[in-house]
């Protein structure tokens, strides 16, 4: 059966669909999350001996960091769809995703700082990846600040879409310049990312946690999207009749 994408592109049809999806993602987030944590804390053999117990923070830190970057790409993608198809719903979803992306960045920064404290002894040592995460947070804050500064929804949607696009073009350059400030001898990542020699159980636990975070990043934006739809479509027929039914 061919999925008629445009059927779901109107807020009226998207709203009930989101309503049905939210409980599903809620249950998935919880189940996979618990399973991931159980696997991470109990199934990992004694590889994590005493002095390396702090390693378990990566079960939270890495998924949050991945999600923070992934959600920014999602925001830009929906903004692009909005700009090209002039679809109001696409802008609303971009608006719904951004705050969750910002929270993921905050989580990544916090857990990263705790990780830094345990492994290198200082809360913040301007490690290139952590600095990039901090800059990503500034970009999120800038995006949300612009969105809330403009009252007219139409203009705030399109202005923030352009800003998100400009941000996406600049992010690789920023991350690269933070990682390699001295172009002559570009020590790309002086902290070689410890992904290579990782023990399979830990990797499995971390990947499950990433899936759980991913489900979470579907859940909350969908809920926030419903709020935005209600707010913006309050004088449309389907909202009034829906509210009457509920009253």
């Amino acid at each position: 059966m061919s999925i008629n994408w445009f059927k779901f592109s109107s807020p009226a049809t998207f709203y009930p669909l989101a309503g049905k999806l939210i409980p599903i993602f809620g249950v998935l987030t919880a189940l996979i999350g618990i399973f991931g944590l159980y696997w991470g804390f109990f199934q990992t053999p004694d590889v994590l001996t005493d002095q390396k117990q702090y390693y378990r923070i990566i079960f939270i830190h890495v998924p949050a960091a991945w999600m923070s970057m992934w959600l920014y790409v999602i925001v830009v993608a929906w903004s692009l769809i909005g700009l090209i198809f002039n679809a109001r719903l696409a802008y609303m979803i971009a608006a719904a995703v951004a705050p969750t992306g910002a929270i993921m960045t905050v989580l990544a920064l916090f857990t990263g700082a705790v990780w830094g404290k345990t492994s290198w002894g200082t809360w913040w040592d301007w490690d290139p990846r952590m600095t990039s995460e901090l800059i990503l947070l500034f970009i999120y804050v800038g995006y949300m600040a612009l969105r809330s500064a403009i009252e007219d929804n139409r203009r705030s949607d399109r202005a923030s879409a352009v800003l998100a696009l400009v941000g996406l073009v600049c992010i690789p350059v920023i991350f690269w310049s933070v990682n390699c400030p001295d172009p002559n001898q570009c020590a790309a990542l002086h902290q070689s990312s410890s992904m290579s020699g990782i023990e399979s159980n830990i990797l499995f636990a971390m990947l499950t946690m990433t899936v759980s975070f991913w489900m979470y990043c579907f859940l909350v934006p969908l809920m926030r999207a419903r709020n935005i739809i209600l707010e913006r479509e309050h004088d449309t027929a389907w909202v009034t009749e829906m509210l009457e039914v509920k009253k």
Partner: protein
Amino acid sequence: MFNIFRCIVMRDLTLAMRRKTDVLTTMFFFIIVVSLFPLGVGTEKETLRHIAPGVVWVAALLASMLALERLFASDYSDGTLEQMLLTPQPLTVLVLGKVLAHWLLTGLPLVLIAPLVGLQYHLSIESTGVMMLALLIGTPVLSLIGAIGAALTLGLRGGGILLSLLILPLYIPILIYGSGAVAASAIPGSELQAYFSLLAAFLLMALIFSPLATAAGLRISVE
């Protein structure tokens, strides 16, 4: 096409000349910020020489940031911006003209003032020269990227603070390599070519992409 570009640049320059004070404010802001640091950090020669690159570039960033608000604001308020959007000329050329005029009034003075800062911070002649060249290539990029923010936050109350919130993260690569060049120039025998080619690459990228984004931003804001 070129005489349109020239017309816009001359228009903005004559406008600025009519109000002499606006031209000098950015430069004096830069000087004040640069002169504040020694009072705060201490005037010991070695530390000053060490912090000079970072201070100069952060001050240049802030100075060009504050001057950005005037880029479109006066045209927006008296309706000439609308007329510009309705001319049969490509908007990107008009935007480039305005940004060039804006850079001549705010970016270039910073470059010319750099020797004074070099003296204040006991920089060697060679370092001051590198600083001037780095500023010469870097400040246009600041104006170009800043123009995008100015276009997006047109007519918003509290636009200045919002503008800096949007644009400062995007300035970071220029800050890193700009101050990196000046710092590297202090080390004898260090290779500066890489820094300047990077800054030039940023300038080229900004020249190509930022007028498009600024034009889109203007169309959205003037609606």
